[in-house]
């Protein structure tokens, strides 16, 4: 196949070139591309903030930026990365692009709402960026009261409004996915024939729909308190500052699963494709996603072990937190078992999958530390927690995100990425990540509190190590940005199924036509049946 073939055939990318054909598109694939561009920008922005934080922490004195600036840096790093990168990351890009294709649908159930949710993310991001340009916000991404409502004199309202609006983007995406999975499956595509990526996004949709409104209303209350000085959270007026933490974490803990469940879905696809085996224990992996979504709503109180909540609340939340660990463990074991007697390829996406399983294992196991009451009292609000959730969010979600991007790149663009460079950058990311965040476990147990601009000198060596690792990590993140852009024009043309994968998305030409399937497929095979791999599509 040649480049000429790519250009002759009408597909979703060359079906209209004008700005309007993109900004008013209802095609889930184009919307996915819009999301991809948007969140890449947010990721870069959050990454710049992270680099400045790491640079500042090279010396204990806090002499690079002022403490006001430092506080704004980590707040904006958190806000951007959590609400504008991690939460939309996998669902809004790969979920949007492939969920309809995987179940044999022409589009999501509500294409206009899908476009609306992209605009909402843009609007929310606009407010957040306005807040940053105007002077920043310094409350931490957690907005704890009464600091955020009464004491901070930064742009809390604009930022909260941005998150509020972006929240509706998330809700609408989740709603769209749930309805699509329920109502749009192709003939024969029963629930247990769906790829696990679809299961994961479905479970994520449930959390988005149930959890996000709670943070929205919490932000409304913060807004009211800040503007009208009413006493919902301010103890001086009879309010309860810890109530905020309950409401906040009621969403924000499940939000962790919004960030990691779709990533787990990606890993299921990668592990299966590159070992040419069905996922070991498919129903267990599928139901563990649902279990995580449900139990995830019952554990928010483990963020409040030292907040002064009652002893018994602490016990209950610790107990329940261990329950949510089990489904994650089941997933890890099943992925590993899938490799057994497989036909394992070392293509870049698989390297990311290996990286994910390893780092997520560490992230998950250290979750057991912070769920143990006695230990959490010591390590909460220290770098131990920072390291733990970066192992899950960056070592987990971002690894899976990049793995997925490489895996589906040929389908999305019709081109292959350069394999050598991709492997190199995967290596940089894995090594850089561990160098950055492993020292932070030690720092945390030593007692280094989080959100410290200056720190006692005995912590310096570990901080320097962490910053050194971050530079390696940064190189690892910059490389794909360059070679992926390069491959858009110069990459070798990919066939319709370069990996020999099984999903319905590989039964369409690359890039897919606007309505995905000329003929809606009838599904007869189980998921991940490698005796029935879609053949290369002959393009006329």
């Amino acid at each position, binding site marked *: 196949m040649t480049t000429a073939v790519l250009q002759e055939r009408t597909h979703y990318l060359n079906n209209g070139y004008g700005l309007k054909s993109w900004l008013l598109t209802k095609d889930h694939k184009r919307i996915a591309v819009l999301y991809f561009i948007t969140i890449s920008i947010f990721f870069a922005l959050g990454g710049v903030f992270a680099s400045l934080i790491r640079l500042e922490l090279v010396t204990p004195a806090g002499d690079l930026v002022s403490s006001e600036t430092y506080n704004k840096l980590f707040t904006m790093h958190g806000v951007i990365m959590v609400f504008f990168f991690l939460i939309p990351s996998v669902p809004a890009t790969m979920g949007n692009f492939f969920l309809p294709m995987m179940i044999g649908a022409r589009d999501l159930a509500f294409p206009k709402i899908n476009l609306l949710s992209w605009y909402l993310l843009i609007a929310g991001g606009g407010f957040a960026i306005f807040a940053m340009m105007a002077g920043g916000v310094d409350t931490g991404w957690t907005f704890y009261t009464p600091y955020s409502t009464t004491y901070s004199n930064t742009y809390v309202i604009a930022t909260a409004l941005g998150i509020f609006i972006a929240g509706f983007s998330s809700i609408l995406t989740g709603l769209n996915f749930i309805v699509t999975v329920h109502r749009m499956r192709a003939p024969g595509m029963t629930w247990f024939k769906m790829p696990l990526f679809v299961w994961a996004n479905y479970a994520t949709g449930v959390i988005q729909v*149930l959890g996000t409104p*709670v943070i929205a209303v919490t932000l409304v209350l913060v807004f*009211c308190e800040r503007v009208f000085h*009413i*006493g919902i959270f301010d103890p001086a*007026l009879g309010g309860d500052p810890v109530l905020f933490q309950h409401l906040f974490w009621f969403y924000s803990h499940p939000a962790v699963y919004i960030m990691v469940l779709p990533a787990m879905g990606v890993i299921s696809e990668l592990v299966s494709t590159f070992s040419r085996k069905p996922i070991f224990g498919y129903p267990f992996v599928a139901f563990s996603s649902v279990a995580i979504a449900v139990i995830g709503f019952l554990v928010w109180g483990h963020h409040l072990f030292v907040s002064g909540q009652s002893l018994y609340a602490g016990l209950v939340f610790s107990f329940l937190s261990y329950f949510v660990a089990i489904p994650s463990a089941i997933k890890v074991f099943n992925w590993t078992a899938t490799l057994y007697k497989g036909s394992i390829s070392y293509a870049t996406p698989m390297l990311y999958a290996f990286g994910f399983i390893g780092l997520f294992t560490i992230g998950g196991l250290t979750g057991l530390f912070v769920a143990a009451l006695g230990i959490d009292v010591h390590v909460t609000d220290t770098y131990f927690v920072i390291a733990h959730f970066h192992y899950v969010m960056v070592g987990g979600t971002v690894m899976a995100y990049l793995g997925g991007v490489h895996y589906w790149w040929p389908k999305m663009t019709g081109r292959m990425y350069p394999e050598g460079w991709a492997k190199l950058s995967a290596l940089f990311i894995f090594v850089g990540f561990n160098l950055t965040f492993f020292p932070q476990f030690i720092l945390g147990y030593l007692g280094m509190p989080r959100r410290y601009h200056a720190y006692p000198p005995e912590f310096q060596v570990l901080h320097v190590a962490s910053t050194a690792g971050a530079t390696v990590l940064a190189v690892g993140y910059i490389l794909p940005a360059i070679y992926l852009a390069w491959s858009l024009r110069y990459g070798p043309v990919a066939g319709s199924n370069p990996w020999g994968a099984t999903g319905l998305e590989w039964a369409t030409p690359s890039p897919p036509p606007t309505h995905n399937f000329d003929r809606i497929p009838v599904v007869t095979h189980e998921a991940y049946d490698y005796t029935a791999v879609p053949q290369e599509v002959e393009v006329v």
Partner: protein
Amino acid sequence: MSSEAHAHAEETLALREQFDTAEQQKDASTLGMWIFLITEIMFFGGMFAAYTIYRSAYPTVFAVASSSLNVTIGAINTCVLLLSSFTMVMAVRAGQMGKRNMIIIFLILTLIFGCIFLGVKAYEWNEKYVEHHMPGQAAFHLEGTPLQGPAKIFFSLYFAMTGLHALHMVVGVGILLTLIVQTRAKKFSAEYFTPIDISGLYWHFVDVIWIFLFPLLYLIDRHLPK
């Protein structure tokens, strides 16, 4: 193969191009609205949780503050809203039968009731403002209790909850107006009236929220010892 033929057919309102059958599309729209309403329940749920916590913390203040609200007006408004739900049901029924004139009449009736509700609500809010019961007013004062802080919390919740509810009503009024215009433009028929149907769901939901708000805000002092 019908699906193949369909992929190239012109899309209609009743059958958008991503769907195979009109029934599938209607099912999807209805399910979508239900899920949206679940989201709304969680949205109001956060407020109800805050209300519950503070009411159990300051039961007497909440009772005193609640008794300062005008129950008669609240009850009248409840009736108005229930009536509007009834006319909405009738509009949906007219939609099922494809009677455009009846749809328009009942939608307009619903619209009028909705506007009456909002007008009465605005009157009540103004009353609160005049009585200095609005948090944020420098002269805020609630008679009958020394605890002005918790009294403010009650009224903050009162304004936040009724305000949020009213906002949903305003959105509902906008939806009704759109539906009326669309019906006049002959967009709906007995085959396709999904927007009327799911807007009905929304309207009833907003109604139900009020059914919870009314006793919680207006009637809670009734069972407390005086």
